[in-house]
């Protein structure tokens, strides 16, 4: 009963991955139907020395880290808040988690046009109200803008998971600490935070999986630009393959992305594993 699922997943992973590997060592241009000669590591050399590569690696890292820092920090704050007694908590919760269900193309276009547009956007209007210069968000600070857009979409996820973990915290322990005269900060640092550690690592692990292949938000807002200022690894591979039709070097890029993700995955799985044992 297990085998169909395993076989399907194995095929889904192994066949395309093997093909990516094969292409990455061959000369394969979609628009030039000549023979696919063996190139050795030439595609890799081409991809890795592409001036956009190092930047895209840095951008990938910056986007993942930026979104993680914002969502985990703000998520802890929001989760702590939502755990308090308040009127209409259910509605507050529903409002806060809503952005998670908005498809990336919608959220990116709404932010791009209605908020970050330098002329008609709400941010530009706010800037004028406060008497400062309106900035062209996606042109002047593309990476920061993308980080904000993506963080908005993932904040609900972090909040919801941290809140769920928080609610499983034994309240007696907190009360006992309070009786013993532990301050709010001490209680948070010594009781709540360790309790949340596992949920935090899970949030980091899962968000990293999705953030590494961030694509749609870049696709509909900056197209990786200006220049390659907001190109991440996923977008660079896409542009090699489907904009420049260079299958060989795109595949080399794909392999690089897989290796990069695996290194990160091993590191993250260790982190989570450690927390599971604790």
């Amino acid at each position, binding site marked *: *009963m297990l085998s169909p*699922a395993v076989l399907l997943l194995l095929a889904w992973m192994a066949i*395309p991955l093997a093909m*990516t590997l094969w292409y990455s060592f061959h000369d394969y241009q979609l628009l030039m139907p000549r023979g696919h000669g063996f190139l050795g590591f030439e595609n890799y050399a081409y991809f890795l020395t592409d001036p956009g590569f190092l930047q895209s690696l840095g951008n990938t890292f910056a986007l993942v880290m930026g979104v993680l820092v914002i969502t985990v920090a703000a998520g802890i704050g929001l989760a702590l808040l939502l755990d308090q007694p*308040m009127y209409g908590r259910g509605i507050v919760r529903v409002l806060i988690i809503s952005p*998670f269900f908005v*498809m990336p193309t919608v959220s990116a276009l709404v932010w791009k046009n209605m908020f970050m547009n330098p002329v008609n956007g709400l941010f530009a209007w706010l800037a004028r109200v406060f008497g400062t210069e309106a900035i062209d968000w996606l042109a002047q600070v593309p990476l920061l803008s993308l980080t904000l857009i993506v963080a908005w979409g993932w904040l609900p996820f972090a909040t919801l998971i941290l809140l769920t973990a928080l609610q499983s915290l034994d309240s007696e322990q907190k009360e006992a600490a309070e009786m013993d005269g532990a301050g709010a900060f001490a209680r948070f640092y010594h009781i709540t935070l360790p309790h949340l550690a596992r949920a935090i690592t899970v949030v980091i692990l*899962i968000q990293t999986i999705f953030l590494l292949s961030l694509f749609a938000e870049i696709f509909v807002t900056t197209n990786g630009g200006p220049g390659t200022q907001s190109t991440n*690894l996923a977008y660079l591979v896409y542009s090699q393959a489907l904009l420049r039709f260079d299958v060989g070097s795109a595949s080399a890029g794909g392999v690089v992305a897989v290796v990069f993700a695996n290194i990160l995955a091993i590191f993250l799985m260790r982190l989570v594993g450690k927390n599971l044992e604790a």
Partner: protein
Amino acid sequence: MARALDGRQKLAFTLIGWVLALLIFFPILWTVLTSFKTEGEAIAIPPKFLAFDWTLENYVEVWERTDYLRHFRNSAIISLGSSLIGLCVAVPAAWAMAFSPTRHTRSVLMWMLSTKMLPAVGVLVPIYLLFKRFELLDTRTGLIIVLMLSNLPIMVWMLFTYFKEIPRDILEAARMDGASPAHELLHILAPMALPGIASTLLLNVILAWNESFWTLNLTAAGTGPLTAFIASFSAPEGLFYAKLSAASTLAIAPIVILGWLSQKQLVRGLTFGAVK
């Protein structure tokens, strides 16, 4: 004394909570409001919050001038199709692992999780070429296959965590009482397994509805789901805020509402059962 303090604290938390919630929700609210404005009012400075001539013309326009309905149907077919087919594969697998675990079960599960770590760009080129070769590009069938496969690990994991909670003693008790296997399945297991299966289906429909890597890369105009349809508004000539807002509202409304209903299952499904 303490009660008065508690009351005041509760008011303060309520105030902070509502302000933050409305701030976070504001982009969605603003999109919905803008969808009822004329194009002129949509870019008015200072912005008009509620005092504008409410109109439905954007919805009429999106409905009549674009293929909204076709894209909506594509989204529905692709997300439901991939989730239902996925269930057919995932239920037996999760069932087997939950009820007759072997010493490999744990590693099979971890391996499935690890396939989610494979970045989609790593297989973009071959999938694209295979799709081209087998004429699956720009077809719903192709997207159903790809989305089903990419969500399969999540489905198996999620179902596994639900099935594991079904007490096995009940089965044995039923067998002692002389229940036939068919009776066992229909009257004892199904009622206990269905909630988990339903939650898994719900979460996967949401994930597939919003999936925007494969849907953008493997479709052109015709069979694209709503993600691709909305992306077509990114062209500069498509810069009409009110119409973009109306199309966006129509695209996200069903899934945002579905999402509200599935908050609890969401946590469990997306954390591979690690946080419940």
